[in-house]
């Protein structure tokens, strides 16, 4: 490529005129051309460039298919076929076109070298569009750039003029089009509609978004819409002198890094920064600017779900997404944008798209009790507020006074963190105390069901399975449903009010200290619900290393599946301050996550973080409907788990404990019991109970599960865990609730079923007559549950999200080792005290 720069043709004067370039689809069979530009976007652009369709490459048309679609091409020695619509997005230069461009010292022969040089020159022609609010200084910037040499062009179908001019810098020609000033890209006014159509239809290579530095919040609203459109943008921070005069501090470089758009300060009236701006445009055009990346503005969980659903149907028609971002269209449809409907109406699956978007709008409006357009506008302003809070110190006149006033307390430097900690403490305290009443009712119901079955059914394995396996196992877990619902009530409250975003904001500084961004905190808090969606939520973190790190520490966030185990053990062994103990376990989990993050950041993941905007959406009063919906959804999910995986696991655990039936007992218990029954002494009843218990104990120990338990017990003995505890941990690998159901099956089998599991855990004795559980062992056990092996679903999620088994396996081993090590320290040191 380089050698063509040095040949004689490089000295040719080439005049580039602004005209509609030839597209690849216009070439005929056998024609040759050189690629000058690849338009289009997203997956199409990625695929096409990977196939070798890059600037300066020679391409030959082999043949058009009988119906003129697709077209077969030869590029870099191999043959590919493209749809006509795809080929129309690739600009080429042909011999004829090159002749018309090369007008000086031309020797009459257009060789391949000439063509290639011309193609390279032509690819240095950048189509730039100027977009900005009215009175943002856009036109003065344009005039300065064009030195008032602009010509006015009328565009068909609209009455609005848009001016085009040329600027030359560093061998590049910038064809700058000044578009009408708009506050937004909604299709309300002709100007807005025009600007939007221009950007989507003409596909400028780079957009200069002129932002009035003295009114950032309002001006950046338009920028958020450009972000949604997924187009190349450079922000001209115009009237920068006014911002400086006010004494405001604005870290525009950080903001640029956060939003993935370079920001160049300019003073268009004085010509300040214009050259830098154009140089930046060239860098962005050539994909040389390191901070350019496409980000997604987070519209909140519900809106994001709706966007995803609409995107799914839009994606069915790849030809739409080759041109326009499916996310942009989805957002516009949610905003009830008539123009978006009009644009999509020509596609065959429009009716489905429309149906789904209408359904999603209805759902969102009923959930949030706001007009869908307002919801999206609020989220955009939330994004801007978050971005400016981190980068701008000045008098930002927001339209959200109430939100600001609340934020003064909630995100206050000194109060923010204590308020957050108090809220978490209150949440766990309530989970425990409010939950205990309905928990007792369900427990009574479960006991009653067991008794009734015991009375109705004749003795046999099915009766044992129902009472010991299913009621003991599933019943042991189901009683914690109220606790789960209460926890989810609070999580939903945090999300719906907008407090969750503030929590991330408050935690930002701490997260920075551990090498992560505050944004990583959202997936971590989500981990309190379930680690699987939390791991999926890390997709918003673009830095891959930070993402993997967040994924790896996520299992330390106690998911709701672990809550039943905590509540059971805490009820049994820490009854005095259960809420505080529960809170401290969650806090220990967070502390371990932080320590592990610091360790990993210093050893495995050493990359620098990419800044992000922390959205601060306005506060909202949560609707009862939305909160109950979240709780209902979680309740249904929990019950489904009971009826599925927990039930199945309980049956398997029971079967492993029930079989084999033929056991060689160490002593003949039946004979001893028979003799005792005949003797009729005063303590006969107690002795018979003891012998029966011993027999059951030995039978269980020699069952399949007992054998497994005894196999793993030596590894767990240094932690103070017996074989039943070890087996329960092992079964918890499938799902953490199964720890409780396994305990329910193992500790309750064959004995007095009316006694609660809590009582049985408190009184369980080993062969030596010592208590199996002491508060020390129970605490070590809680720690083990907190840290060890994330469940199978989490492991699968880690594998899927990181794309490698190695991270999934790493998560399995390092968490289990850490759990063992900490429980060992707790038990061994605790035993010495």
């Amino acid at each position: 490529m380089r050698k063509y720069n040095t040949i004689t043709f490089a000295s040719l004067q080439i005049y580039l005129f602004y005209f509609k370039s030839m597209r690849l689809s216009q070439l005929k069979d056998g024609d040759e051309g050189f690629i000058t530009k690849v338009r289009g976007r997203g997956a199409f652009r990625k695929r096409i460039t990977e196939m070798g369709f890059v600037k300066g490459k020679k391409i030959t048309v082999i043949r058009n298919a009988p119906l003129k679609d697709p077209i077969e091409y030869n590029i870099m020695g191999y043959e590919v076929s493209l749809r006509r619509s795809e080929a129309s997005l690739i600009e080429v230069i042909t011999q004829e076109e090159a002749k018309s461009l090369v007008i000086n010292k031309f020797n009459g022969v257009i060789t391949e070298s000439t063509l290639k040089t011309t193609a390279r020159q032509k690819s240095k022609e950048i189509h730039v569009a100027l977009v900005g609010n009215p009175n943002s200084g856009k036109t003065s910037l344009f005039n300065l750039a064009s030195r008032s040499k602009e010509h006015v062009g009328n565009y068909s179908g609209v009455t609005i003029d848009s001016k085009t001019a040329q600027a030359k810098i560093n061998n590049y020609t910038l064809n700058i089009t000044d578009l009408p000033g708009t506050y937004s890209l909604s299709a309300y006014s002709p100007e807005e509609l025009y600007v939007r159509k221009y950007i989507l239809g003409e596909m400028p290579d780079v957009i200069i978004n002129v932002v009035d530095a003295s009114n950032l919040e309002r001006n950046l609203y338009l920028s958020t819409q450009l972000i949604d459109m997924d187009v190349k943008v450079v922000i001209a921070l115009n009237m920068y002198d006014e911002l400086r005069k006010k004494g405001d501090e604005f870290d525009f470089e950080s903001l640029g890094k956060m939003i993935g758009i370079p920001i160049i300060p300019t003073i268009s009236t004085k010509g300040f920064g214009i050259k830098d701006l154009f140089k930046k445009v060239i860098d962005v055009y050539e994909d040389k600017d390191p901070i350019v990346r496409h980000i997604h503005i987070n519209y909140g969980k519900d809106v994001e779900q709706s966007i995803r659903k609409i995107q799914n149907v839009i994606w069915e028609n790849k030809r739409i997404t080759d041109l326009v971002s499916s996310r942009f269209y989805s957002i516009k449809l949610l905003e009830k944008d008539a123009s978006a409907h009009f644009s999509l109406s020509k596609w065959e699956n429009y009716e489905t798209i429309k149906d789904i978007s209408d359904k999603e709008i209805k759902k969102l409006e009923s959930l949030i009790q706001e007009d869908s357009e307002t919801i999206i506008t609020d989220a955009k302003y939330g994004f801007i507020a978050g971005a400016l809070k981190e980068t701008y110190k000045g008098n930002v006149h927001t339209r959200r006074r109430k939100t600001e006033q609340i934020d003064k307390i909630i995100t206050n430097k000194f109060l923010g963190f204590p308020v957050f900690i108090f809220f978490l403490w209150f949440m766990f305290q309530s989970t425990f105390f409010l939950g205990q009443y309905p928990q007792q009712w369900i427990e009574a119901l479960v006991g009653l069901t067991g008794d009734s079955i015991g009375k109705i059914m004749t003795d046999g394995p099915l009766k044992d399975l129902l009472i010991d396996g299913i009621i003991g196992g599933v019943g042991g877990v189901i009683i914690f449903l109220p606790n789960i619902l209460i926890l989810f009530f609070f999580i939903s409250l945090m999300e719906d009010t907008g407090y969750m975003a503030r929590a991330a904001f408050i935690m930002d500084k701490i997260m920075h200290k551990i090498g992560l961004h505050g944004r990583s905190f959202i997936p971590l808090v989500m981990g309190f619900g379930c680690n699987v969606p939390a791991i999926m939520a890390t997709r918003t973190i673009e830095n891959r290393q930070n993402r993997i790190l967040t994924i790896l520490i996520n299992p330390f966030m106690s998911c709701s599946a672990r809550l039943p185990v905590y509540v059971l053990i805490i009820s049994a062994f820490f009854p005095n301050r259960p809420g505080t103990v529960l809170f401290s376990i969650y806090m220990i989990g967070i502390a371990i996550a932080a320590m592990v993050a610091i360790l990993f950041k210093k050893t495995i993941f050493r990359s620098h973080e990419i800044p992000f905007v922390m959205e601060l959406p306005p506060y909202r009063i949560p609707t009862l409907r939305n909160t109950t919906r979240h709780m209902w959804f979680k309740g249904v999910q929990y019950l489904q788990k009971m009826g599925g995986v927990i039930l199945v696991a309980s049956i398997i655990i029971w079967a492993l404990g029930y079989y084999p039936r033929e056991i060689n007992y160490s002593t003949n218990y039946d004979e001893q019991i028979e003799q005792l029954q005949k003797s009729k002494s005063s303590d006969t009843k107690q002795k018979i109970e003891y012998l029966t218990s011993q027999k059951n104990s030995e039978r269980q120990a020699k069952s399949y599960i007992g054998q497994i338990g005894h196999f793993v017990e030596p590894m767990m003995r240094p932690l103070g865990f017996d074989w039943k505890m070890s087996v329960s941990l092992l079964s918890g690998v499938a799902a953490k609730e199964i720890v409780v159901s396994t305990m329910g099956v193992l500790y309750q089998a064959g004995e007095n079923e009316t006694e609660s599991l809590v009582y049985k855990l408190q009184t369980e004795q080993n062969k030596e007559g010592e208590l199996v559980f002491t508060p020390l062992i129970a605490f070590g056990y809680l720690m083990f549950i907190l840290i060890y092996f994330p469940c199978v679903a989490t492991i699968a999620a880690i594998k899927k999200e990181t794309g490698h088994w190695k991270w999934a396996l790493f998560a399995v081993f390092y968490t289990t080792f850490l759990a063992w090590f900490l429980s060992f320290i707790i038990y061994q040191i605790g035993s010495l005290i």
Partner: protein
Amino acid sequence: MQEIIVYILIAGSVFYAVYHIAGIFFKKQNHCGGCSSCVVKEKLK
């Protein structure tokens, strides 16, 4: 009779457990919209 029902339940449970765990690992991944955000992520991989 009870014995037979129990055996069927156990066999069903084992089958469900295997199916469930396999399902977790082999479930199809979510779509990627192919926007440049995903492209960047792909490149970072």
